[in-house]
């Protein structure tokens, strides 16, 4: 080792990024109007979709500058769910996005590929058995990890992405027992999906209803949804950086999710 070679972890990482040995993968969907959002019966409160209204664009409202006013619900686009989002997490300490420990904003990921199953069954439910088979191949899910369900759903657009019919949304997700198991037996940091929610489209009909929300947030865990490009991640070894906006008592936040991947 010469005097000039870096030794500190950050210096090593910097060098790895510079050399391309570590790549940065963007797991975020573009925050844009027209993107599908969660749907509730119309008599209930509705989340705002993304709106972008120009303030000026080098015009009579501002000759040399361009800027917009933006508005959206906390659970719009690629976003994080904090424990306070669900009633099971309402009394937990540090349960909102502004009090989320920053140490949790950088965490390893286990990527479970259920894209083949999801392609043939839009209502595919990932089970404990399915994840145990993944562990048999890749090793046990370490505590404090994101578990990301790769379904390739983010390759779909519009109506195919929301996949609504007269019985609601049909998108893959975890079953109830898997969620209890991931939280209680594996102590994950949270679960991430490529679909509109951490729960399956028909997750409201499971026991308990919306098990991902129920178990994750009840235990102070997090959700990431509307992720993209999970196919670019290895099954294990990626480092996720997911830092939500610091919204006072925010229940969630759109955010830029990036992954550091070693080649």
């Amino acid at each position, binding site marked *: 080792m010469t005097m000039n070679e870096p030794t500190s972890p950050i210096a090593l990482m910097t060098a790895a990024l510079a050399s391309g040995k570590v790549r940065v993968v963007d797991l975020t969907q573009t925050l844009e109007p*027209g993107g*599908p959002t969660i749907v509730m019966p119309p008599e209930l*409160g*509705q989340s705002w979709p993304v709106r972008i209204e*120009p303030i000026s664009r080098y015009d009579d409202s501002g000759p040399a500058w361009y800027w917009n006013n933006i508005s959206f619900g906390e659970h719009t686009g690629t976003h994080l769910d904090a424990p306070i989002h669900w009633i099971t997490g309402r009394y937990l300490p540090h349960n909102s996005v502004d009090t989320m420990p920053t140490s949790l904003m950088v965490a390893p990921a286990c990527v479970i590929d259920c894209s083949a199953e999801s392609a043939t069954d839009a209502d595919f439910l990932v089970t404990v058995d399915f994840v145990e088979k993944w562990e048999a191949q890749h090793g046990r899910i370490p505590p404090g990890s994101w578990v990301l369900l790769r379904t390739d759903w983010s390759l779909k657009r*519009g*109506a195919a992405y929301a996949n*609504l*019919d007269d019985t609601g949304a049909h998108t893959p997700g975890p079953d109830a027992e898997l969620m209890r198991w991931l939280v209680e037996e594996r102590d994950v940091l949270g679960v991430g999906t490529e679909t509109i929610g951490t729960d399956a489209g028909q997750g409201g009909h499971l026991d308990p209803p919306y098990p991902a929300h129920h178990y994750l947030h009840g235990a102070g865990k997090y959700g990431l949804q509307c992720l993209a490009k999970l196919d670019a991640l290895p099954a294990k070894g990626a480092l996720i950086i997911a830092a939500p906006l610091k919204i006072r008592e925010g229940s969630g936040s759109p955010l830029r999710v990036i992954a550091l991947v070693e080649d």
Partner: protein
Amino acid sequence: MIVQRQRPPRKNPLQRTAAPLQPPARRSRAAQGLTRAAAQGQFALHTCQACQAVSYPPRDACPKCLSENLIVAPVPNGGTILSVTTIQISGEPYFRRLVPARQALIALDCGPTIVAEVRPDCAAGIRVRASLQLDKAGQPVIYARPEHGDANSDSDPHWRELVADPLHRRCLITDGRNPVALPLAKALLAAGAAKVVVGISERWKPFAEAAKLEALGSVELVDLDLADDQSVSALASDYGAKTDILLHTALHLRPGSVFSGAELLKARDAMEVSYFGALRLAHHFGPVMRSRGADRDNSAAAWVNLLSIFAHLSWPGFAAYSATQAASLSFSQALRAEMRGSGVRVLDVFTGPMEIDWLEHLPPPKVQPSAVANEIVAALKGGEEERWVGDVAKDFRERFTANPKEIERDLWQQ
């Protein structure tokens, strides 16, 4: 037999688009008494309360007994032509495009002998029906057509100046999810519209009527989210100069009380599509429509705002909705003022509660979406500026005009 006018040829892109011109617009205050009747498609003239004499043109005093107690009241519209004059040359730039013009001396059955514009097939001695119309300056004029024979005056270019007939025109329905949209598209096509473009918001949400709309033929479903400026802008880029009649049908009806915390969100959501949606449409579609008001026979012709009678008086239990309607009525008035001189008619269509799922708890009478659709087309063909659809709306208009406090108290009891 009615021979329908052929579709106008495509525009010659080498020729300058004709700029809108106005007929003389000066009127006395007394003459404005006829404007409301013309706007609502009624035939009403000044009638003396002292001697019952009917007078025209409007005056400040009765020409028979000099009483100043004149009201504008509905009168029979029949008459007999005494003579017809053909004007070959006019000094008015507006009329120079329209000569020859035919004007007649008509002895109205209700009393006065008047000078009015007449259809070319009118001749001395024949019976005619007169109607009050708004001209391109938005001012009241009288037009007469033969009592017998073709009821459709579309063959007369002078008549076409007075109305916003959908025949051969391209129409845009801004909220295809409104239950009025499907019957409205049908009615427009039945009236000869060349094309009906229907805006659908959030097309990723299932929309059962889509197949029915597409099955009509000559219907184009497009993305249009009235709450999204970029969406309205994108549609205007493609269709702004191809929209002859814009029908703003935004419907966002939710019950609610001003005491409810949820009301603010409901009001914002409703305002986003109704009032702010109208502003976005005005910003992106308005200028080009205004500039195309004299663009030959398929010029921009009308902007229709579908409104509730509760634009005039808040409906107990529907506070946010009523506020959006009041705001939208104010928008419509502003738009009409901005469109003045363009030849684009701004039509307000007021309805009572419609037969829709949000209002299933209300007992009849409720107005059917198909009735609203048919009356919109009738109002366009008649060149109206205001149409009240259904018995509830007509009753409301009379009572609100007579005593708004009476109907306000009555709504409390319902």
